[in-house]
Protein backbone atom coordinates (compact mmCIF):
# COMPACT_ATOMS: atom_id res chain seq x y z
CA UNK A 1 0.00 0.00 0.00
CA UNK A 2 1.19 3.53 -0.74
CA UNK A 3 2.66 5.33 2.26
CA UNK A 4 1.02 8.44 3.70
CA UNK A 5 3.70 10.70 2.23
CA UNK A 6 3.47 9.45 -1.36
CA UNK A 7 0.41 11.57 -2.15
CA UNK A 8 2.70 14.61 -2.15
CA UNK A 9 4.94 13.28 -4.91
CA UNK A 10 5.08 15.49 -8.01
CA UNK A 11 4.70 13.21 -11.02
CA UNK A 12 5.19 14.24 -14.63
CA UNK A 13 2.11 13.52 -16.75
CA UNK A 14 3.24 14.83 -20.15
CA UNK A 15 6.98 15.11 -20.72
CA UNK A 16 8.58 17.51 -23.18
CA UNK A 17 12.18 16.35 -22.73
CA UNK A 18 15.02 18.01 -20.86
CA UNK A 19 16.67 21.42 -21.15
CA UNK A 20 20.01 22.58 -19.86
CA UNK A 21 19.49 25.57 -17.55
CA UNK A 22 22.77 27.44 -16.86
CA UNK A 23 22.79 27.38 -13.04
CA UNK A 24 20.42 24.53 -12.23
CA UNK A 25 21.74 21.98 -14.72
CA UNK A 26 19.57 19.43 -16.50
CA UNK A 27 15.87 20.10 -15.92
CA UNK A 28 12.88 18.10 -17.10
CA UNK A 29 10.13 20.14 -18.73
CA UNK A 30 6.81 18.45 -18.11
CA UNK A 31 3.19 19.02 -17.18
CA UNK A 32 3.00 17.59 -13.67
CA UNK A 33 0.09 16.74 -11.41
CA UNK A 34 0.96 19.88 -9.43
CA UNK A 35 0.61 21.90 -12.62
CA UNK A 36 -2.76 20.31 -13.36
CA UNK A 37 -4.05 20.91 -9.81
CA UNK A 38 -3.10 24.59 -9.95
CA UNK A 39 -4.65 25.03 -13.39
CA UNK A 40 -7.92 23.46 -12.23
CA UNK A 41 -7.85 25.75 -9.18
CA UNK A 42 -7.35 28.79 -11.41
CA UNK A 43 -10.05 27.75 -13.86
CA UNK A 44 -12.33 27.04 -10.91
CA UNK A 45 -11.88 30.53 -9.49
CA UNK A 46 -12.40 32.24 -12.83
CA UNK A 47 -15.37 30.02 -13.65
CA UNK A 48 -16.97 30.56 -10.25
CA UNK A 49 -16.65 34.33 -10.40
CA UNK A 50 -17.87 34.57 -13.99
CA UNK A 51 -20.86 32.42 -13.09
CA UNK A 52 -21.50 34.55 -10.02
CA UNK A 53 -21.35 37.83 -11.92
CA UNK A 54 -23.09 36.78 -15.15
CA UNK A 55 -26.63 38.10 -15.19
CA UNK A 56 -26.14 40.01 -11.93
CA UNK A 57 -29.41 41.08 -10.34
CA UNK A 58 -30.33 43.50 -7.58
CA UNK A 59 -31.71 40.58 -5.62
CA UNK A 60 -28.89 38.03 -5.93
CA UNK A 61 -29.49 34.39 -6.79
CA UNK A 62 -27.62 31.57 -5.10
CA UNK A 63 -24.42 31.80 -7.16
CA UNK A 64 -24.31 35.57 -6.96
CA UNK A 65 -24.92 35.51 -3.21
CA UNK A 66 -22.02 33.09 -2.72
CA UNK A 67 -19.70 35.25 -4.81
CA UNK A 68 -20.85 38.42 -3.09
CA UNK A 69 -20.37 37.04 0.39
CA UNK A 70 -16.78 35.98 -0.40
CA UNK A 71 -16.12 39.35 -2.03
CA UNK A 72 -17.72 41.20 0.86
CA UNK A 73 -15.76 39.26 3.45
CA UNK A 74 -12.36 40.06 1.98
CA UNK A 75 -13.41 43.63 1.19
CA UNK A 76 -14.45 44.08 4.80
CA UNK A 77 -11.17 42.57 5.95
CA UNK A 78 -9.00 44.82 3.78
CA UNK A 79 -10.93 47.92 4.82
CA UNK A 80 -10.93 47.14 8.53
CA UNK A 81 -7.22 46.30 8.62
CA UNK A 82 -5.67 48.73 6.12
CA UNK A 83 -8.20 51.52 6.62
CA UNK A 84 -9.51 53.91 3.99
CA UNK A 85 -6.80 52.89 1.52
CA UNK A 86 -7.82 49.25 1.81
CA UNK A 87 -9.74 49.33 -1.48
CA UNK A 88 -6.50 49.82 -3.40
CA UNK A 89 -5.04 46.60 -2.04
CA UNK A 90 -8.26 44.64 -2.07
CA UNK A 91 -7.69 43.03 -5.52
CA UNK A 92 -4.36 41.62 -4.37
CA UNK A 93 -5.81 40.28 -1.13
CA UNK A 94 -8.84 38.81 -2.92
CA UNK A 95 -6.67 37.13 -5.56
CA UNK A 96 -4.45 35.59 -2.91
CA UNK A 97 -7.45 34.47 -0.89
CA UNK A 98 -9.29 32.82 -3.77
CA UNK A 99 -6.18 31.13 -5.16
CA UNK A 100 -5.11 29.68 -1.81
CA UNK A 101 -8.69 28.73 -0.96
CA UNK A 102 -9.31 26.94 -4.24
CA UNK A 103 -5.98 25.10 -4.11
CA UNK A 104 -6.69 24.03 -0.51
CA UNK A 105 -10.22 22.92 -1.29
CA UNK A 106 -9.18 21.07 -4.44
CA UNK A 107 -6.77 19.08 -2.30
CA UNK A 108 -9.84 17.60 -0.62
CA UNK A 109 -11.25 16.40 -3.94
CA UNK A 110 -8.18 15.51 -5.99
CA UNK A 111 -5.38 13.16 -5.00
CA UNK A 112 -2.93 16.02 -5.00
CA UNK A 113 -2.81 19.25 -2.96
CA UNK A 114 -0.89 22.07 -4.63
CA UNK A 115 -0.49 23.98 -1.35
CA UNK A 116 1.18 20.99 0.29
CA UNK A 117 4.21 21.69 -1.90
CA UNK A 118 6.74 23.92 -0.18
CA UNK A 119 7.70 25.37 -3.59
CA UNK A 120 4.14 26.62 -4.14
CA UNK A 121 3.66 28.10 -0.68
CA UNK A 122 7.11 29.74 -0.66
CA UNK A 123 6.26 31.35 -4.00
CA UNK A 124 2.97 32.66 -2.57
CA UNK A 125 4.76 33.87 0.57
CA UNK A 126 7.45 35.60 -1.48
CA UNK A 127 4.85 37.30 -3.69
CA UNK A 128 3.13 38.67 -0.57
CA UNK A 129 6.45 39.70 0.99
CA UNK A 130 7.85 41.39 -2.12
CA UNK A 131 4.57 43.23 -2.67
CA UNK A 132 4.86 44.59 0.87
CA UNK A 133 8.48 45.66 0.28
CA UNK A 134 7.72 47.30 -3.09
CA UNK A 135 4.60 49.08 -1.77
CA UNK A 136 6.58 50.24 1.25
CA UNK A 137 9.45 51.59 -0.85
CA UNK A 138 7.17 53.28 -3.39
CA UNK A 139 4.95 54.88 -0.75
CA UNK A 140 7.56 55.89 1.81
CA UNK A 141 10.89 55.93 -0.04
CA UNK A 142 13.76 55.74 2.44
CA UNK A 143 11.19 56.33 5.18
CA UNK A 144 10.44 52.63 4.76
CA UNK A 145 13.36 52.00 7.12
CA UNK A 146 11.36 53.65 9.92
CA UNK A 147 9.66 50.28 10.14
CA UNK A 148 12.82 49.06 11.87
CA UNK A 149 13.27 52.15 14.06
CA UNK A 150 10.70 51.83 16.87
CA UNK A 151 10.08 55.41 17.99
CA UNK A 152 8.25 54.23 21.11
CA UNK A 153 11.23 52.40 22.61
CA UNK A 154 13.90 54.09 24.79
CA UNK A 155 16.76 55.43 22.65
CA UNK A 156 19.30 53.01 24.10
CA UNK A 157 17.15 50.00 23.20
CA UNK A 158 16.12 51.13 19.73
CA UNK A 159 18.94 49.47 17.73
CA UNK A 160 18.31 46.12 19.41
CA UNK A 161 14.54 46.29 19.06
CA UNK A 162 15.08 47.41 15.47
CA UNK A 163 17.31 44.41 14.82
CA UNK A 164 14.66 42.07 16.19
CA UNK A 165 12.05 43.84 14.05
CA UNK A 166 14.26 43.37 10.99
CA UNK A 167 14.74 39.67 11.64
CA UNK A 168 11.03 39.12 12.22
CA UNK A 169 10.27 41.12 9.07
CA UNK A 170 12.62 38.92 7.03
CA UNK A 171 11.10 35.77 8.56
CA UNK A 172 7.58 36.72 7.42
CA UNK A 173 7.61 34.96 4.04
CA UNK A 174 9.05 31.84 5.68
CA UNK A 175 6.39 31.69 8.40
CA UNK A 176 3.63 32.48 5.86
CA UNK A 177 4.82 29.65 3.63
CA UNK A 178 5.51 27.15 6.40
CA UNK A 179 2.14 27.72 8.08
CA UNK A 180 0.19 26.95 4.93
CA UNK A 181 2.49 24.10 3.92
CA UNK A 182 2.56 22.52 7.38
CA UNK A 183 -1.20 22.71 7.86
CA UNK A 184 -1.99 21.14 4.52
CA UNK A 185 0.77 18.51 4.76
CA UNK A 186 -0.01 17.61 8.36
CA UNK A 187 -3.75 17.40 7.80
CA UNK A 188 -3.47 15.19 4.74
CA UNK A 189 -0.87 12.90 6.33
CA UNK A 190 -3.07 12.41 9.41
CA UNK A 191 -6.10 11.79 7.19
CA UNK A 192 -4.23 9.18 5.18
CA UNK A 193 -2.87 7.42 8.26
CA UNK A 194 -6.34 7.06 9.79
CA UNK A 195 -7.73 5.89 6.46
CA UNK A 196 -4.97 3.28 6.31
CA UNK A 197 -5.91 1.99 9.78
CA UNK A 198 -9.40 1.23 8.51
CA UNK A 199 -8.16 -0.98 5.68
CA UNK A 200 -5.22 -2.57 7.47
CA UNK A 201 -7.00 -3.39 10.73
CA UNK A 202 -10.13 -4.56 8.92
CA UNK A 203 -8.09 -6.81 6.64
CA UNK A 204 -6.07 -8.16 9.57
CA UNK A 205 -9.28 -8.98 11.47
CA UNK A 206 -10.88 -10.82 8.55
CA UNK A 207 -7.73 -12.66 7.45
CA UNK A 208 -6.63 -13.79 10.94
CA UNK A 209 -10.09 -14.40 12.40
CA UNK A 210 -10.67 -15.53 15.99
CA UNK A 211 -9.41 -13.07 18.56
CA UNK A 212 -8.43 -10.59 15.81
CA UNK A 213 -12.13 -9.78 15.30
CA UNK A 214 -11.62 -7.43 18.26
CA UNK A 215 -9.85 -5.17 15.75
CA UNK A 216 -13.12 -4.47 13.91
CA UNK A 217 -14.33 -1.82 16.43
CA UNK A 218 -10.91 -0.14 16.21
CA UNK A 219 -11.24 -0.01 12.42
CA UNK A 220 -14.75 1.40 12.79
CA UNK A 221 -13.42 4.02 15.19
CA UNK A 222 -10.75 4.97 12.63
CA UNK A 223 -13.45 5.28 9.99
CA UNK A 224 -15.38 7.68 12.22
CA UNK A 225 -12.16 9.56 12.87
CA UNK A 226 -11.52 9.82 9.11
CA UNK A 227 -14.97 11.30 8.53
CA UNK A 228 -14.51 13.80 11.37
CA UNK A 229 -11.04 14.76 10.14
CA UNK A 230 -12.33 15.27 6.61
CA UNK A 231 -14.81 17.80 8.00
CA UNK A 232 -12.01 19.41 10.00
CA UNK A 233 -9.80 19.56 6.91
CA UNK A 234 -12.47 21.53 5.03
CA UNK A 235 -12.49 24.01 7.92
CA UNK A 236 -8.68 24.16 7.93
CA UNK A 237 -8.61 24.68 4.16
CA UNK A 238 -10.81 27.74 4.51
CA UNK A 239 -9.15 28.97 7.70
CA UNK A 240 -5.64 28.84 6.29
CA UNK A 241 -6.69 30.81 3.20
CA UNK A 242 -8.35 33.33 5.52
CA UNK A 243 -5.31 33.57 7.80
CA UNK A 244 -2.99 33.96 4.82
CA UNK A 245 -5.11 36.89 3.60
CA UNK A 246 -5.40 38.49 7.05
CA UNK A 247 -1.65 38.33 7.57
CA UNK A 248 -0.98 39.72 4.09
CA UNK A 249 -3.32 42.63 4.91
CA UNK A 250 -1.63 43.20 8.27
CA UNK A 251 1.81 43.28 6.64
CA UNK A 252 0.51 45.67 3.97
CA UNK A 253 -1.00 47.87 6.68
CA UNK A 254 2.43 48.12 8.34
CA UNK A 255 3.90 49.82 5.28
CA UNK A 256 0.82 51.65 3.96
CA UNK A 257 0.11 53.43 7.24
CA UNK A 258 3.74 53.66 8.30
CA UNK A 259 4.33 56.04 11.22
CA UNK A 260 0.63 56.81 11.73
CA UNK A 261 0.76 55.02 15.02
CA UNK A 262 -1.28 51.89 15.42
Amino acid at each position, binding site marked *: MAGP*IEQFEVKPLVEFGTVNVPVLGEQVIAITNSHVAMTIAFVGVVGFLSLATSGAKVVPGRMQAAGESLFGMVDN*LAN*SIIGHEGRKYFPFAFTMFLMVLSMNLLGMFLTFTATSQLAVTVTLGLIAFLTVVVVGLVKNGVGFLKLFWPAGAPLLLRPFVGLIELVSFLLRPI*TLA*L*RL*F*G*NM*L*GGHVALKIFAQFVVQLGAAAIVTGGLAYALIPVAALSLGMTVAMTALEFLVAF*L*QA*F*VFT*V*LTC*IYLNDVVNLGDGH
Partner: protein
Amino acid sequence: MDAEAAKYIGAGLATLGMIGSALAVGNIFGNFLAGALRNPAAAASQVGNLFVGAALAEALGILAFVLGVLMIFG
Protein backbone atom coordinates in the same frame (compact mmCIF):
# COMPACT_ATOMS: atom_id res chain seq x y z
CA MET B 1 23.30 3.98 18.58
CA ASP B 2 22.28 3.37 15.01
CA ALA B 3 22.04 6.64 13.07
CA GLU B 4 18.69 5.57 11.59
CA ALA B 5 17.25 4.94 15.06
CA ALA B 6 18.53 8.28 16.32
CA LYS B 7 16.74 9.96 13.41
CA TYR B 8 13.38 8.56 14.49
CA ILE B 9 13.98 9.38 18.15
CA GLY B 10 14.89 12.92 17.13
CA ALA B 11 11.76 13.25 15.01
CA GLY B 12 9.67 12.01 17.92
CA LEU B 13 11.31 14.49 20.27
CA ALA B 14 10.73 17.30 17.79
CA THR B 15 6.98 16.70 17.92
CA LEU B 16 7.07 17.56 21.65
CA GLY B 17 7.19 21.18 20.50
CA MET B 18 3.52 20.82 19.61
CA ILE B 19 2.68 20.72 23.35
CA GLY B 20 3.43 24.42 23.62
CA SER B 21 1.42 25.18 20.51
CA ALA B 22 -1.54 23.19 21.83
CA LEU B 23 -1.45 25.09 25.12
CA ALA B 24 -1.24 28.39 23.26
CA VAL B 25 -4.16 27.68 20.94
CA GLY B 26 -6.27 26.40 23.84
CA ASN B 27 -5.40 29.50 25.82
CA ILE B 28 -6.44 31.81 22.99
CA PHE B 29 -9.80 30.14 22.37
CA GLY B 30 -10.48 29.77 26.09
CA ASN B 31 -9.79 33.41 26.75
CA PHE B 32 -11.85 34.41 23.75
CA LEU B 33 -14.80 32.43 25.06
CA ALA B 34 -14.39 33.92 28.53
CA GLY B 35 -14.31 37.41 27.06
CA ALA B 36 -17.13 36.71 24.62
CA LEU B 37 -19.42 35.49 27.40
CA ARG B 38 -18.78 38.65 29.39
CA ASN B 39 -19.45 40.92 26.45
CA PRO B 40 -21.19 39.00 23.65
CA ALA B 41 -21.90 42.18 21.69
CA ALA B 42 -18.20 42.79 21.07
CA ALA B 43 -17.35 39.16 20.32
CA ALA B 44 -18.18 39.13 16.61
CA SER B 45 -15.80 41.98 15.86
CA GLN B 46 -12.87 40.08 17.39
CA VAL B 47 -13.22 36.81 15.51
CA GLY B 48 -10.62 37.93 12.96
CA ASN B 49 -8.12 38.68 15.72
CA LEU B 50 -8.94 35.33 17.30
CA PHE B 51 -8.03 33.38 14.18
CA VAL B 52 -4.90 35.40 13.50
CA GLY B 53 -3.73 34.78 17.06
CA ALA B 54 -4.53 31.10 16.77
CA ALA B 55 -2.68 30.90 13.45
CA LEU B 56 0.39 32.64 14.87
CA ALA B 57 0.48 30.29 17.86
CA GLU B 58 -0.17 27.28 15.69
CA ALA B 59 2.64 28.18 13.29
CA LEU B 60 5.21 27.36 15.97
CA GLY B 61 3.71 23.92 16.45
CA ILE B 62 3.83 23.46 12.69
CA LEU B 63 7.52 24.41 12.78
CA ALA B 64 8.09 21.54 15.22
CA PHE B 65 6.25 19.22 12.85
CA VAL B 66 8.30 20.41 9.87
CA LEU B 67 11.49 19.80 11.87
CA GLY B 68 10.35 16.25 12.54
CA VAL B 69 9.56 15.69 8.86
CA LEU B 70 12.95 17.14 7.91
CA MET B 71 14.67 14.75 10.29
CA ILE B 72 13.05 11.70 8.75
CA PHE B 73 13.11 12.69 5.08
CA GLY B 74 15.79 15.41 4.99
